[in-house]
């Protein structure tokens, strides 16, 4: 087998999923006591921790905006997150991580009700523990949960998923091997309840005739992720309250 077949004749992908299936999502909220809000997010083998600090006083004076808060995001991958161990200094501040931190920052600047926190800043820190594709989407989803845990006012959840088309089939939630197939990587993030698109990023072009089905699949994926996240968030807060009642 010279060419890797990404979708078998039976319609199964490398990891045994169908084209429209997500990987298993596992989340935990309130994992860090020191942060105002935090969340652990696991999608397949991609594992991420997000922590939110704020709203707090602006650290660099002169950056404050008089009628709203500023959002800052720092994204870092740990040196042990990929199969090839990277030296520590290259895991932060390179092009790829800056791109992701800007993406997360922009996504939440429009979703957080920043006018409620004038002259303050909200910091989002994202740390990748294990990387297996879909990092951007996982970073956004993890940040949403951490912000909810911090009690910061938001218009809606932000749910993101990566989609692509491989061999003419629209495929949802790529893993690392599929990401490297050279096919287009299309990241869609939406506000699932009030219905708005936060961002739609495409690395290389999606064929025009397939674009609609890719987008539709992405929207379905985001809605599915939203239902998983909101169920888990409700379960988390119900657990918190039942623990409170016991004490």
């Amino acid at each position: 087998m010279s060419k890797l077949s990404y979708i078998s004749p039976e319609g199964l992908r490398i990891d045994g999923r169908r084209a429209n299936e997500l990987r298993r999502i596992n989340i935990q909220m309130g994992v860090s006591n020191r942060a105002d809000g935090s969340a652990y997010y696991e999608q397949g083998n991609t594992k991420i921790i997000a922590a939110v600090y704020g709203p707090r006083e602006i650290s660099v004076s002169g950056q404050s905006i008089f009628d709203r808060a500023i959002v800052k995001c720092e994204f870092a991958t740990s040196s042990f997150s990929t199969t090839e161990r990277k030296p520590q200094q290259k895991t932060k501040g390179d092009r790829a991580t800056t791109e992701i931190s800007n993406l997360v920052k922009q996504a939440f600047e429009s979703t957080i009700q920043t006018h409620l926190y004038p002259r303050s800043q909200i910091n989002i820190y994202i740390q990748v523990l294990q990387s297996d594709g879909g990092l951007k989407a996982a970073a956004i989803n993890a940040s949403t949960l951490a912000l909810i845990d911090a009690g910061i006012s938001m218009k809606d959840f932000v749910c993101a998923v990566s989609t692509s088309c491989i061999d003419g089939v629209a495929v949802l939630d790529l893993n690392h091997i599929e990401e490297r197939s050279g096919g287009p990587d299309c990241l869609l993030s939406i506000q699932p309840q009030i219905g708005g698109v936060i961002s739609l990023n495409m690395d290389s072009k999606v064929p025009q005739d397939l674009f609609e089905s890719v987008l539709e699949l992405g929207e379905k994926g985001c809605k599915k992720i939203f239902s998983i996240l909101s169920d888990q968030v409700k379960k988390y807060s119900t657990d918190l309250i039942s623990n409170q009642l016991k004490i």
Partner: protein
Amino acid sequence: MTSNVITPGQRLAKDSEYISSEGTYTHKGYIYSSVLGFQHIIKKNLNKPTSEEINNSNNSNVNNSDDRDFIVVLKEKEPSVVPEIGSIVTVQVLRINPKLASVAILCVGTKALKETFNGIIRIQDVRATEIDKVEIYKSFRPGDIVLAQIVNISNIL
């Protein structure tokens, strides 16, 4: 009570039925939640709606008269507050110099801050009358607890 946890972005009611208040916002004629918590209806006809007078949504009737009730979503965690222009704050004096007293803001209203904010009391803001005769050394000492109000500097300058 445990069954209806409200998550951000959840649609709560029509704009015409309630007045959007803390933890909620309006969008295209509907009221949505903006935080994680529980929905409460605060009766408008009560003079001072305090936390004891908050009724649960289950046992309160929707008021059909003109004055709508407030709808709020409260978190199970203490919400983090931020000092705003006009808010009454409790501060502690850290350092003084002839021109100003630098302070740490401890509380906003009745809520204590998790992390203190820095502030200054300028010599011209110490009192309302005889501003030119104020001496910081005679007004404050480090460690003093002061009740103060946040003023808008951009309006004064």
